[in-house]
């Protein structure tokens, strides 16, 4: 328990700072791949800073749920950030919530975000909430199967334990079960973070949008909290994927040298995963909404195969 606060503080600051940067990097990479110049990587910081200093318009029809939602979305995402191993295997709050708590805390944020969308009384919010809850419901079983495959291999649902086991067998990701689970989780990652081909983060067209529709009525600091929270959630899920499947460089303790090395490795891994996402986003068109369940079904089957292959090999 000693040193819990500094550890938690350090990890929290890292998460809060890296999350917008990652969103910026993905935007820039995507623009370059589409032969555009695009915004520079620090644009997300400027957006958030600017939003925090702007005024807010709250819909007349809304209740306190609308105002409480941004806080809940942000706080749950930040708390989850303390539960997963970032640059060391020893996550500050790992003892107090394993992978199930992570998934369900993110679900708590989503629950309120959907309520906030419906609270405005506009159809856009309703469309977004309905689609978000639907897609997450279909994504959840696939996600759990992939997570269970890893948890069963590590003998624990505790993320620090999972990371320690992963570090001790770094090359295990070549095992068929791990590769299948990674493929399953990658599809879920795309769906959960609202990226193409499931949702288009760059559009405000009512026929295609999901996340943007829910937050249409938010402005000023509330919007900043939601956008920041969404980028933290994206970083959390990506970190979860890279550190459970490719645990190279994770420091086993909180020494300065280990941390520095861990940080370098972490950035490299995250950049590779981000490039992979950018590649998928650029080479795929958005799927029709009712095609998304098929994609997620593929993910579910991959997860089931991963599980069966744990059993076989």
């Amino acid at each position, binding site marked *: 328990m000693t040193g819990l606060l500094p550890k938690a503080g350090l990890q929290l600051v890292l998460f809060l700072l890296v999350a917008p940067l990652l969103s910026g990097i993905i935007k820039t990479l995507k623009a370059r791949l589409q032969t555009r110049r695009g915004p520079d990587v620090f644009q997300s910081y400027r957006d958030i800073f600017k939003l925090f200093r702007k005024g807010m318009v709250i819909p007349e029809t809304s209740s306190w*749920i609308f105002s409480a939602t941004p806080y809940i979305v942000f*706080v749950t995402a930040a708390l989850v950030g303390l539960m997963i191993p970032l640059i060391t295997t020893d996550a500050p709050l790992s003892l107090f919530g394993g992978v199930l708590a992570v998934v369900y805390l993110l679900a708590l944020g989503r629950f309120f975000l959907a309520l906030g969308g419906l609270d405005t009384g506009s159809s856009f919010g309703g469309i977004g909430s309905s689609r978000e809850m639907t897609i997450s419901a279909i994504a959840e079983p696939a996600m759990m199967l992939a997570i269970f495959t890893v948890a069963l291999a590590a003998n624990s649902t505790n993320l620090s334990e999972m990371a320690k086991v992963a570090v001790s067998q770094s090359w295990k990701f070549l095992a068929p079960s791990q590769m299948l689970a990674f493929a399953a989780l990658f599809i879920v990652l795309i769906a959960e973070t609202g990226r193409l081909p499931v949702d288009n983060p760059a559009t405000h067209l009512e026929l295609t949008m999901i996340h943007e529709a829910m937050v249409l009525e938010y402005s000023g600091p509330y919007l900043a909290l939601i956008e920041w929270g969404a980028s933290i959630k994206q970083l959390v899920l990506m970190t979860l994927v890279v550190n459970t499947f490719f645990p190279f460089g994770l420091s086993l303790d909180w020494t300065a040298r280990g941390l520095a090395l861990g940080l370098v490795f972490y950035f490299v891994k995250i950049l590779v995963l981000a490039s992979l996402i950018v590649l998928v986003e650029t080479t795929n068109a958005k799927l029709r909404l009712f095609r998304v369940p098929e994609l997620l079904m593929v993910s579910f089957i991959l997860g089931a195969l991963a599980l069966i292959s744990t059993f076989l090999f």
Partner: protein
Amino acid sequence: MSTLPVGATFVLSLAAYSAGACASLASWRKPAMARYICCGAALAGAVMGGLASVFGILQGAPVRWSVPSGIPLFAYSFSYDALAGFFNLTLAILAIAVSIYSFGYLKEFEGRRNIGFFGFLFHLLLLSLTIVFTAANAFLFLIGWEVGSLAAYGLVTFYHEQRESRQAGLLYVIMAHADVGCLLLGFALLIQGSGSAEFASFHTAAAQLSSGRQSAAFLLFFLGFCIKAGVIPFHIWLPAAHPVAPSNISALLSGIVIKAGIYGMTRIFLDSLGGVPSWAGLLVLIVGVVSAVLGVLYALMEHDLKRLLAYHSIENIGIILIGLGAALVFRVAGHPQLAAVALIAAMFHTLNHAIFKCLLFLGAGSVLHSTGTRNMEKLGGLIRPMPVTAFCFLIGAVAISGLPPLNGFVSEWLTYQSLLAGFGATGGLTRILFPLAGSMLALMGALAAACFVKAFAITFLALPRSAESRTCHEAPRSMLVGMGSLAMACLVLGLGVTWFLPVFNALTEQLLGQRVGTNLISGHGLVLSAGTPHGGTVSTAVIGIGLVILLIPTVLLVSIGARRFARRRGPTWDCGLPGLSEDNEYTATAFSKPLRMIFSALYQPRREIQAVFDVSPYFPKEIRFESEIEPTFEKRLYLPLKDLVLWFSIRMRAIQAGSIHAYLAYIFVTLVLLLLFGVRP
């Protein structure tokens, strides 16, 4: 430990319920007095029952009484052990909240309905449940069971002038008797083996039964208890009967009456039947998964608030069965420690579901009380006139969706952990089944969250959709206290689960010989660990504290940022049209449309759209929209069954000639046959 007055408090609680039943009936001419007697006596009985259960749980050792009746096989035997104590505790918590709630709720019955008769049935229901949970004699158990069913029938048909109520009541009473028939046969098998109807005698007798009879007994009991608990495919009475009853009764029906089925399974499978067949646990598990997934899928399609809640009862009973099935599997496989964790998951979810489902039904009752409608499409915006009800309903909605840090999360977490443990504890292909069941649990969790976003948002948020929801008012204070106490219980059992866990020590020791409960607590009494080989740890208390700690700087950040501009209220974006109205809002039907399309193979949705045009087809004057989903089980299973019964009855009419001579001949022939059967060597 000195002996605590378990017996005295228990008898006082029975006496309070009995006296309440008689006194309510006697004062039926004075509605106000009947109301006070009904609620007051129920409150007294529930408090006494609660004390008895707390004493019983603290005492640990079972307390038994038996009064011989003079009738063969029948005795007034009671046994107050850990399992009885736990279910009585659940009953007492709900009964206390519901009786406080009823002080206000029954007021509108005054002068319109017979409160005396209502009170009589209400007390009878509570009395019979107390007897069911403590009976140690098969016949006493069955009498309690049957009286409970009849009292519930009376309450379901309380609005008997409505056709819907009468039909639901008829369906309920038919299913209740199918269920009691199965139990009677099951007990007959056991009594035949042991020669006694005492539960204590079954243990050794069941072990000596042939495996065929053991399986038959298991299946009969399982069928009977499944019907009571509303497990799919025996569920059809539940979404019909629970919504039509008065709301305080719906809360009890979904909260505790169906849990009698769970109690029966736990009592018979883990206690009385020494060993169940090895496939039994898997059967319970699979039935649980199917029931839970289908239950939540049907719930999503409902826009009647109370029917939606009723379908969620089916889902949650399924989740309880998953835990119970895992416990049975582990016990047969020789892992009593894991079985104990799975049993705790099932029992804790029983208590949690009882609390939040009762809370949600009471919330729905307040909405119905003040708006007069259960149809969500006519509600909306109730969070402004009814802030407290809305807040309580929100707590219930978060809890039932299994979201941290409330109680539903904890029991689902424990269920996940037992399922993961099942992968290591079993062999062969069955081990794959456990993580798959886990992924289905994830699916139902997410679908339940979607459903409660719909239920809460369409009912309480945005703009009112009808005149009734515009002019409604907050519920009376006693109703709010009833709901508030249950909302508090959701918080306390969620954040303070580690304080509550020792309750399971005696329960697991009694049923599985493993004292599990306190040893799952670690980390300064804050952390709950699964105690299983594939387990993990969680702490809802730290999650709760963490959320609050992180909230403080966030609020500061926003208030510093927003300092420069006042926050303005403005209209919602209306796409340039002249203002939004309730017609622009998303509806419950629209919200569930994507899921209706994705699962169309199950729902077989049918829809009809008729538009009336004036000039151009782009500007319809009127649109009539009709949509319905196919009630698969009613149509494919029960309709053919009903036809078969009717066909058989028509054939039987041939011997019902109506002639007294024929009937006398039947009686004579039956008598001769019985005598022959009786004197058979």
